[in-house]
């Protein structure tokens, strides 16, 4: 057998290539180490009201230090609960191929800050819906795909995330993929997904509903009255397929103490949804208000003055503390990754630059048992 002579040029090329690979690996490792944001020590939230929460908006927040700073500020404000959106399409771009980097980061920082995470799941990937539809469209054929994702999420974050919301505001046509809303089909979604999630993680509490408060008249193309929608969910057998009702309770231009009225969208409309639960024999279940709040935009017709926004927000936290059937209340929204430059900006507690708005300081003062109203 003859010897194979090494070609010196090829050898040099191979050595150079090997050196490049090693240098690349060192650079990548060093960059990862330098870019990593330390979780820091385990924290706890100090507050007089353990039901206080906010809806964060970290979904599109790419920079880890901003995720950490947001969650630190939530803790420092005195809110032990957050609701956060985890879009299915972001994390399962192909069937069965999951990318958990972003939710890993958010949940690790949230739990390290001592926050309880309520995870909202939805937003269908392209492969799970017909061409030409939007990510809020999910047909019954793909409920099981959504169930697989929700179950994978529940299993992965077992011990870190104990609350999962299935879909959002299905009583609005827009949130139902611009189709006529369908409480029976949403109930079918619960019927398919709930057992998959519970099998993956029996400890997790599954939230359903998250209905938009609306007075949409019968037959409206835009949506269905939330009270009617919830009753139709019960009629379709939804009670067996969720553990906690998710409620959206916005104040619009009304005060937090204004009495509930089926013809009015106000904060205490939450009590009417609770009544529907009780009427359907579901009174032993708890509820969580996963979106709430007031807006102080100077031009939005449903806004209030900045002072009324603060007063009503704090009053809503107080009212929530007195409702034994409610576990938590999350105000929309803590901070956006960027300014919307419309009325939505006037829901936030903190600016894009992390500058606290007065409402942040006032809520923090309330959580510490103090106050600063004029």
């Amino acid at each position, binding site marked *: 057998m003859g010897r194979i002579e090494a070609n010196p040029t090829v050898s040099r090329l191979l050595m150079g290539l090997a050196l490049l690979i090693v240098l690349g690996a060192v650079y990548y490792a060093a960059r990862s180490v330098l870019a990593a944001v330390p979780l820091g020590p385990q924290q706890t939230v100090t507050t007089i009201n353990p039901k206080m929460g906010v809806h964060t908006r970290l979904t599109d927040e790419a920079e880890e230090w901003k995720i950490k700073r947001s969650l630190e500020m939530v803790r420092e404000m005195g809110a032990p609960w957050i609701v956060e959106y985890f879009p299915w399409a972001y994390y399962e771009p192909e069937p069965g191929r999951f990318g958990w980097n972003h939710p890993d980061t958010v949940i690790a920082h949230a739990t390290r800050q001592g926050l309880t995470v309520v995870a909202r799941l939805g937003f269908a990937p392209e492969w799970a819906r017909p061409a030409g539809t939007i990510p809020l469209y999910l047909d019954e054929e793909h409920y099981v795909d959504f169930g697989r994702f929700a179950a994978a999420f529940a299993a992965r974050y077992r011990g870190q995330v104990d609350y999962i919301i299935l879909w959002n505001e299905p009583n609005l046509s827009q949130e139902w993929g611009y189709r006529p809303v369908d409480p029976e089909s949403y109930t079918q979604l619960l019927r398919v997904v709930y057992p998959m999630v519970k099998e993956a993680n029996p400890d997790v509490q599954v939230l359903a509903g998250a209905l938009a408060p609306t007075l949409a008249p019968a037959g409206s193309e835009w949506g269905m009255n939330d009270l009617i929608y919830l009753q139709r969910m019960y009629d379709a057998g939804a009670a067996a397929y969720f553990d906690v009702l998710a409620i959206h309770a916005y104040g619009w231009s009304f005060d937090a103490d204004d009495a509930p009225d089926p013809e009015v969208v106000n904060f205490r409309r939450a009590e009417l949804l609770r009544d529907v639960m009780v009427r359907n024999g579901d009174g032993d279940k708890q509820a969580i208000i996963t979106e709430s709040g007031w807006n102080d935009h*100077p*031009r939005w017709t449903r806004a209030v003055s900045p002072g009324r926004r*603060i007063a009503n927000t704090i009053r809503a936290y107080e009212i929530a503390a007195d409702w034994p059937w409610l576990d938590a209340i999350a105000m929309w929204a803590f901070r956006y990754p960027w300014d919307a*430059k*419309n009325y939505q900006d006037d829901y936030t507690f903190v600016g894009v630059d992390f*500058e606290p708005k*007065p409402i942040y*300081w*006032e809520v923090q003062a309330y959580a510490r048992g103090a106050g600063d109203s*004029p």
Partner: protein
Amino acid sequence: MGLRRRMQAAGWRQRLLLVTGLAVIVGMVAFWLTSRFLFGGVDETWQRIQETGVWRVGMDPSFPPFDLLDGEGRPTGYDVDLAQAIADRWGVRVQIVAIGFDGLTDALLAGKIDSVISALPYNPRLTQDLSYSRSYFEAGIRLATAEGSPIRAVDDLTGKRLAVEWGSNGDAEARRLQRADPTIRRLTFPSPQDAAAAVTAGEADGVLVDGVTLRQMQGKGAALVAVGPALESNPYVIALPVDAYTVRGEIDAILAEFVTTGFLAELENRWFSESTQP
């Protein structure tokens, strides 16, 4: 010529052809880009306005004194007068299209209107899709004092009492100033009017309030003087289609002239006077 030399010559010919081809493509692209800017191209918005003699302006008539409806339901206000004055310079008719504030940008993008004039704040995030004129009104947070006050700038607020509407953007600014200078005393009031009244009554040394509210209070006779530039800028601008460069150039020139001639100041006096305020 040997085989090797012939192959080399063929290679050079191929390379020359490739380089020449690339140079031609790059040149064509460069010519297209430069001609677009140097020679103007076609501003379809400007062309349409000139051809039809109509300038379609989107407006949400629910923000007095800039945009409101008169007793007969017709749009009126500062922005209507501004639009009319610009249209007069062009010799065209203004058609005000009433649209909800949050739908104005979409209407412009969809080509339903030619411009938005509606106390619209500049939005840097939309500059890929829209273009904006220069500012015609500063609505940002201002420091105002009583006439004759020695306060000339925020640096003079040390040890002073600063009135704000509780929870407002002015309150946010006051808290920021207070963090830098804890001797500033922040006094909170239920409304900006109450905060301003505290200044005129001598109970506070200054007030932080947005530019629109300040002008409204001045128009109603409050003896307040704005001090220094806006602490947080919020300029009102005219929004246009992103490729409406001729319209934007025309509007910018006219607005600059309106500053020089005092027409914008006249509009402020007209629409922030006591008689025109609700």
